[in-house]
C-alpha cells in the first residue's frame, strides 16, 4: 500500500520533470528562432563585409571594378620592390593619421573625463533648475556631428568668426587666427568640439553612478568633519571608478574611429586626417580598395586589441578584488 503510494509519487514526479524539460526544450528552440533573424542580418551586414574587407586588403582590388582583382599577399601592408620598401606601413601619411587619432583620443577623453566629473558632481547637488541644467547639457550631444562641426567651423572662421572676435576683444590674441586651416591648432579645434559634444555623455554616466552611492558614508564623513576634497578623492572617486572606466573605454573607442568631426572641421586636410579619414581617402578618393582595406583592417585590429586588453584587465582586477 505504502509502496504503491510511493510508486505513484515517483510517476507523478517523473512526468512533471519530463513535462518541464520538454517545455524548456521548446523554449530553447523558440529562443534560437527569435534570435535567428537578428543573427542572419548581422552576419550579412557586419560579419560578411568585415571578412570581405580583410580579404580585399590582400588583393589589388580597385573601386572601378570590384570583381577583377588578384591576390597579392601582404604587399598592401609592406612590400619590397628592388630594394625599396613600399606599402601602408612605410607611408608617412598613415603614421601621421595614426598619431593624430591617438593624440586626439588621449587629449579629448582626458579633458572630457575631468569636465564630466565636475558636471556630474554639480548635477548631483540639489539646486533649483537641476532638471533644466540636465536637459541643457544634453543638447550638444543630440546635435548631429556634421552640424556641430559646421557650427564650430563658423565660430572659428578666420575672418568673421566669433571666437577670434572674443579673443581679440579680450586682448588674448593680437591678430585673427586661422584655427581650422593651421595644422598646429586644427586638432585642438577638433578636441574643443569633441569636448563640447561628448562631455555630457561622460557626465550622465558618472551621474548615474553617483546616484547609486550609499548616502550613509557621506553622512558619516560629514559627522567626522572630513573635508570635501578628501571625501571626493577617498570615497567618491574609488566608488565610481568602475563606472568611470566604462565611460572612458566607451568614449575612447568612439574617439579612435573619429571621422565626420575632423573630416568636416578641417576640410579633409592631410595634416589632421584621422585613421578613418585616411582609409576612406584611399578607398574612395584614390579608388585603391586594396590599400584602403589594409588600413581599415589595421584600424579594426587596433580597436579589437584595445577591447581585448580592457576586457582582460577588467577580469584580472575583478579577480583580485571581490568588491
Amino acid at each position, binding site marked *: 500500500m505504502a509502496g504503491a503510494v510511493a510508486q505513484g509519487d515517483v510517476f507523478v514526479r517523473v512526468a512533471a520533470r519530463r513535462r518541464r524539460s520538454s517545455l524548456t526544450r521548446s523554449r530553447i528552440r523558440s529562443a534560437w528562432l527569435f534570435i535567428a533573424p537578428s543573427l542572419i542580418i548581422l552576419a550579412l551586414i557586419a560579419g560578411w563585409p568585415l571578412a570581405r574587407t580583410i580579404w580585399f586588403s590582400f588583393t589589388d582590388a580597385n573601386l572601378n571594378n570590384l570583381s577583377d582583382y588578384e591576390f597579392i599577399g601582404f604587399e598592401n601592408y609592406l612590400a619590397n620592390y628592388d630594394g625599396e620598401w613600399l606599402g601602408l606601413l612605410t607611408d608617412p601619411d598613415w603614421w601621421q593619421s595614426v598619431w593624430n587619432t591617438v593624440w586626439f583620443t588621449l587629449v579629448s577623453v582626458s579633458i572630457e573625463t575631468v569636465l564630466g566629473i565636475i558636471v556630474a558632481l554639480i548635477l548631483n547637488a540639489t539646486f533649483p533648475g537641476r532638471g533644466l*541644467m540636465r536637459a541643457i547639457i544634453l543638447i550638444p550631444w543630440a*546635435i548631429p556631428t556634421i552640424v556641430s562641426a559646421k557650427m564650430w567651423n*563658423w565660430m572659428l572662421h578666420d575672418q568673421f568668426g566669433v571666437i577670434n572676435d572674443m579673443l581679440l576683444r579680450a586682448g588674448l590674441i593680437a591678430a585673427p587666427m586661422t584655427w581650422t586651416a593651421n595644422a598646429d591648432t586644427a586638432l585642438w579645434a577638433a578636441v574643443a568640439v569633441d569636448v563640447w559634444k561628448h562631455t555630457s555623455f561622460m557626465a550622465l554616466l558618472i551621474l548615474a553612478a553617483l546616484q547609486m552611492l550609499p548616502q550613509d558614508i557621506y553622512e558619516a564623513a560629514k559627522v567626522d568633519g572630513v573635508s570635501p576634497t578628501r571625501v571626493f578623492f577617498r570615497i567618491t572617486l574609488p566608488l565610481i571608478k568602475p563606472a568611470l572606466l566604462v565611460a572612458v573605454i566607451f568614449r575612447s573607442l568612439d574617439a579612435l574611429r573619429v571621422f565626420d568631426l575632423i573630416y568636416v572641421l578641417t576640410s579633409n586636410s592631410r595634416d589632421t586626417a584621422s585613421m578613418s579619414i585616411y582609409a576612406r581617402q584611399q578607398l574612395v578618393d584614390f579608388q585603391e580598395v586594396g590599400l584602403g582595406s589594409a588600413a581599415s583592417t589595421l*584600424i579594426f585590429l587596433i580597436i579589437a586589441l584595445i577591447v581585448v586588453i580592457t576586457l582582460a584587465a577588467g577580469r584580472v582586477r575583478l579577480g583580485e578584488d571581490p568588491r
Partner: protein
Amino acid sequence: MKVLSRIGFWLLVIAIGLFALFPLYYAIISSFRSGSALFTTAYLPERFDPTNYIAVFDRQPFGQNILNSIIVAGTVVAISLGLGMTAAYAFGRIAFRGRALLLMTILAVSMFPQVAVLSGMFELIRSLGLYNTLPGLILANLMLTLPFTIWVLTTFMRELPKEIEEAAFVDGATPWIVVRRVFLPLMAPAAVTTGLLAFIVSWNEFLFALTFTLTNERRTVPPAIALMTGSTAYELPWGTIMAASVIVTVPIIVLVLVFQRKIVAGLTAGAVKG
C-alpha cells in the same frame, strides 16, 4: 565663506550652461543674418531676415534630403525594434547554451569601427543593386543600430519580474504570444528609449551616407549639409549652412527635451548595468 562657495557654484553652473548653449544660439542668430551682415560679428539678434531659410530649399533639394533622412531613420528604427525585441526576449528571459558568448559578439559588433566594413559593405550594396538608394543606407545603418538595440532591450528585459511570464506559460501561452501580449506592452517605455537613440544615431550618420550615395537627391541631411556649396567655389554660404543646421537640429532638440529622462535611462542602461 558659505556665500562665496554658493556664488562660485552658480558661476560654474552658468559657465557650463553658456558653453553648452552658445554654439547653437550663435548658429540661430547667424542663420537670420544674410549678405554682408554676416561679415560683422554680432552677439545679439538684430533682425529676422528669412533669406537663408528660403535659399536652403531653393538652391538644393533640401526638402528631399530631410525626407530621405526621415525615411531612412524611421525604417531603421522600425526594423531594429522589431528584430531587437524578439532577440532581447530570448537573450533576457531564456537560459540557453552560448547565450553569453552571443551577447558578447553582438556587443563587439556595436564597437566595430564603421570604416572597417566600408569596402565590404560597398561591394555588398553594389552587388545588391542598392548603390545610391535609400534601402542601401537602411541596410548599412542597421549595422550601427541593431546591436545596441538588442543590448539595451536585453538589459531592460532582464529587470522584469519572472512571475509575469510563468503565469502566462502555466496558462498555456506559447513564447510568441508571451512576447506579443505580455512583454510588448511592458517593454513599451524601453522601446521608446531605444527607438529614440536608434533614430538619433541614424539621423546623424555621415560616413555611410557620404560613401553610398552619389546624387544630391538621394543624400540624407548630414552629407547634404557637409557638401553644401555657394554660388562661388571659394566662399561657403555660411548663412544657408547655419539655416540648414538649425532646421535639422531643432526637431532633435525638441525630442531630447521631451524625452530627456528616457534618453538618460537608455544611455546609462547599456553602460552601467550591463
